[in-house]
C-alpha cells in the first residue's frame, strides 16, 4: 500500500504559512511537515530520556547514502519511510511512505541546510539503487 505522500499532506499547515512568502521546494516541504516533528525546525534534535540526533553539523550527514538509507529503512525507533512489506491495513495507516524522488529531495535539503553545505546531491535514481524495505538482503539499518 504505497501512498504518495503529496496527495495526503493536509496542505501542510506550516508549509502554507511559509509558502505565502516564498515557494517551497519539495525537500523543504517534506522536512517541515514530517522530519522536524522529531529533528526540530533548525535540525537541532532534542533530548529527553533519549535523544533525537541533530542534523545540524552532524558528521554522519556527510554521507548522502547514509542519510538516504536512514530515511528508507528507518533507524532504531525511527520509522522507515520506504514501503514496508507485510503490513496489515491498520499497520500501514500508522506509517508513511515516500517515493524515491521525495527521499532524494529531503536528503538534499538536510545536507544543504542547518549549516550543512554538502555539494554532492543524491538523485532519485541513486536512491532507487539502495536497498529498500523488504528487498533482497535488506534489513533495518542498525
Amino acid at each position, binding site marked *: 500500500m504505497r501512498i504518495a505522500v503529496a496527495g495526503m499532506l493536509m496542505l501542510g499547515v506550516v508549509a502554507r504559512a511559509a509558502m505565502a512568502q516564498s515557494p517551497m521546494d519539495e525537500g523543504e516541504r517534506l522536512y517541515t511537515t*514530517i522530519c522536524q516533528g522529531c529533528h526540530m525546525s533548525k535540525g537541532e534534535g532534542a533530548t529527553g*530520556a533519549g535523544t533525537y540526533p541533530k542534523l545540524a553539523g552532524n558528521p554522519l550527514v556527510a554521507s548522502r547514502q547514509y542519510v538516504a538509507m536512514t530515511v528508507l529503512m528507518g533507524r532504531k525507533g525511527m*520509522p522507515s519511510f520506504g514501503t514496508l512489506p507485510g503490513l496489515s491495513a491498520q499497520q500501514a495507516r500508522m506509517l508513511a511512505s515516500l517515493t524515491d524522488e521525495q527521499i532524494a529531495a529531503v536528503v538534499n535539503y538536510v545536507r544543504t541546510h542547518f549549516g550543512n553545505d554538502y555539494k554532492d546531491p543524491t538523485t532519485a535514481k541513486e536512491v532507487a539503487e539502495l536497498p529498500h524495505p523488504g528487498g533482497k538482503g535488506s534489513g533495518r539499518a542498525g
Partner: protein
Amino acid sequence: MNDQTDRVATSRRDLLRMIGVTAGASAMYQAMSTLGHAGESTYAGPPDLQGAPPGTSVLVLGAGIAGMTAAYELQKAGYKVQVLEFNNRAGGRNWSVRGGDSYTELGGERQDCQFDKDLYLNPGPWRIPYHHRGMLDLCRRLGVKLEPFVQVNHNAYLHNTEAFGGKPQRYRDVFFDYQGHVAELLAKAAHTSALDAEVSTEDKEWLLESLREWGTLDKDFRYVAGAHVSDRRGWKKARGGGLSARPTPSEVVSRHDILKSRLWAGIPNSFEYDMQTTIFQPVGGMGRVGEAFGRELGPIIKYQAKVTSITQDARGVTVMYDDLADGGAKKQAAAAWCVVTIPLPILGQIPMNVGPKLTTAIAAIPYASSIKVGLQFKRRFWEEDEQIYGGITYTNLPIGTIGYPNTDFQGRGKGVLLGCYIWGLAAMEFTSLTPEQRIQETLRQGARIHPQYPQEFDNGFAMAWHRSPFTMGCMGVWNDEARAEHYDNLCALDGRIVLAGEHASFMGGWQEGSVTSALDAIGRIHQRVVTQGSSKGAGA
C-alpha cells in the same frame, strides 16, 4: 422467527448446563472454549511467585503499567523491588492531563493545562474492553472505579468531505440505510435464483426471512421508507403524545448515495474485538490507574531517574542513572535481576550488555506517530444542540476522530472533547507544528463538523507522542517479518535482564499487552530464581 431464535439459544444453554452438571466445571470450561465463549485473555489471575529465596532483588526500569505490574506482583511475593522512573509521576502512557498540569515536550514547548476541575484528556490509552482481564483485575485490586466507555453512538456522526456536500451524517442513518440496501440486494439475488447453487431451498427461505428482519425489508423485500424503517433510523417528525404528536417517517438515503459516500468505512471500527462492548474507562480519567499504582508502590519508585547504562555480570545487574531531582547527580542501583520496560527508541540508545539478538531486536521496531488534542469548550454543545452523549465521530479530515466525553452527561459546566486522534502521516504533520498550531488546526477542521467550535472554544492541550520525552513515539509497530525474526528474541530472558511492555506483546498499544507481558516476564525470572537458587544480588 423470534421463536426460532430463542429455540436455538435455549438449546445451546441447555447443552452447557448439561455438561456442567454431569462433568464438572473444567469440562464446562472446555466446552465453552469450543463454543467460543472463553479463552478471552492470557491473564490467569495474579501469578503465584512463591518460593524465591527471601530478599531476592529485582530492579524495574519504568513505572508504566508494565513496570508497575511487575513491581507490584514481585513485591507481593516477597521480592525486594526498586523502580526507576524518568518522569516525576507514575503511569507512563497511562495518564490523564488535568487543569494545573504542566508538560514540556521535546523541543521545549511547554503547555500549562487550563481545563476546569474534574475535566481531563487521556493523551494515551482511553478504554479497557471487557476481555482485557488483566487490566480489569488491576483496577479492581487498586480500587479504581470504572464506568462505561461509549464506543458506538448511533447519534454521533460519520463525515466525509466528499459526501453529502460535506455535511456530517448521523451514524444511525448510514448504518441502517447501508444494511437495508445490502439486505434488499441480497434478497433480490436470492429471488432471481442467483444463489441456488449456494443455498438449499430451505436455507434460502431462512435467508430471506433473516434478511427481512436484519434489513427491515417490507413484504416485497424492499428497503423503503416507512414506520418499520423509522423505528430504526428515527422519524422525520418525532413520535410523542397528544394531538400534535403524529409522527412522519424519515426518508431513506438511496443505495447509490450511501455506497458513493464511503461513509460505511466508519462502521467496522466497532466490529474489532478490542472495540466490542462492554468497554470501560476509569472514573476520573485513565490516569487514575497509574496514580493508584504509584500510591500503592510508594517509596520503592525513584522518580526523575534517567537511566544511562545497564550492565549485568554473573552476580547481578547494575544500572547507572542521572538523578534529575538532585541536579543530575550520577547514581547507581543494583539488583540480582532487571525488568526493563523502557520504550525501545530510548532503550536502543542506552548502553546495555546483552546479546546481539536482543540488541538487534530492540533496534528493529519503529515507533508510531500519534496525536491527541483535547479541546475545552464553554458548554457541552454536542449534548445540548446535537444530542450526542459520548461516543465517537469519524471523519476523513486529518483530525480523524472526535471523541465526546463519556461521563457527566448533561453537566452544566464546561466540557472537554477529544478533538483529534490520529496516526501515521497526518500525525507526523501535526507533530511538526507547535502545540498552539495543533490546537488551531484541530479547531479549524473540526468546525466543519461542529460549527459551534469558534464560538465556544475555551482552551486546549495537544499531545504529540513523537515529542514525548519519556517514550519518543507512541507504540511499537510490528510487521509479520519483524515479528517472525525478532519477537521471541525481544522477549527472551538475556542473562539477568528481561524486557516487558506493550512492545513485547501481541496487543500493541493496549495496556493489556503491558500487563500480560510483565506477568510473563516475571514468571520466567521467578522460574529461573527458583530453579537456580539465586544469589541475592548486589542489593539495591
